[in-house]
């Protein structure tokens, strides 16, 4: 019984990784390639690791499997985002079948400022909260920001 679960997990995982590789080879542009490589790759690796956990049935191995899966799930999307974003803003052309692109004219390559397109609808932006807004040290530092010197002096 266990052998069947192990085989199913590892074979599905390997098939997914193969599809990910095929996706990199076949898909037409950078963002779609990132879709194939990271997600199918992440799920494929996770499935293989789960198969390994079932094969060994050991607490130490299972703990490591959980750690591996967690870290892959945490890091794979970040890597995909960084590569995709860099490629997009450097100007790598999108596939001609792309039906919509709302970001291109909202990005300013000089200042790296990205408009949301909601400025007029919802009024001025909310104050940015960093999760530490209540921290008194940070608030004090804001008050003592150096003032700009006069243009003449």
């Amino acid at each position, binding site marked *: 019984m266990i052998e069947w679960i192990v085989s199913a997990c590892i074979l599905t995982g390997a098939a*997914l990784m193969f*599809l990910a590789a*095929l*996706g990199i080879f*076949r*898909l*037409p*542009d950078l*963002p*779609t390639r*990132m*879709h*194939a490589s*990271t*997600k*199918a790759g*992440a*799920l494929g690796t996770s499935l293989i690791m789960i198969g390994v956990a079932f094969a060994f049935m050991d*607490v130490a191995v*299972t703990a490591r499997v959980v750690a591996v899966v967690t870290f892959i*799930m*945490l890091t*794979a*999307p*970040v890597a*995909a*985002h960084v590569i*995709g*974003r860099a490629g*997009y*803003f450097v100007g790598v052309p*999108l*596939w001609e*079948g*792309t*039906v*919509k*692109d*709302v*970001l*291109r004219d*909202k*990005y300013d390559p000089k200042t790296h*400022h*990205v*408009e*949301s*397109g*909601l*400025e007029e609808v*919802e009024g001025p*932006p*909310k104050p*940015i*909260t*960093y*999760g530490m807004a209540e921290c008194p040290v940070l608030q004090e530092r804001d008050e003592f920001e150096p003032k700009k010197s006069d243009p003449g002096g």
Partner: protein
Amino acid sequence: MIGFLWNLLLALAWATLSGNFSGPSFLFGFVLGYGLLALLERELPILHGYSRRLPRFIMFLGFFIKELVKANFKVAFDVATPLWYMKPGVIALPITAETDVEITILANFISLTPGTLILDVSSDRRVLFIHAMFLYDEDEVIAELQEIERRVLEILR
């Protein structure tokens, strides 16, 4: 998050005190700790809402794995067949997540579902720009993503 750490600590304490470091013993300690924290959360503001958040998190994991597998099959089908069924495009998703942590976790989960890739967040943090692979119906894609956002924020807040 702090509640979960306390729960792990209590489970570890149970495993240590009973001198039995096996998986089931740890799990039993975790369940006992969960019951204890559920009783304590009314007294301690730092634990507030923990007993409701853990079942929601497990429900979310189930929902997320279902979405992950479903969408993986969709992408795999498109890669494996010779014709392209995809309609890629970049869309804007208005978000209600505000802090750095919320936006990061939300973006990570959205990026993990195949067919959606985060490209950027607008400088005023109100909109996520997403590269979607199957953009047949934009409203439907946005509704699905907002469902993920609602569930993620339910756990974090």
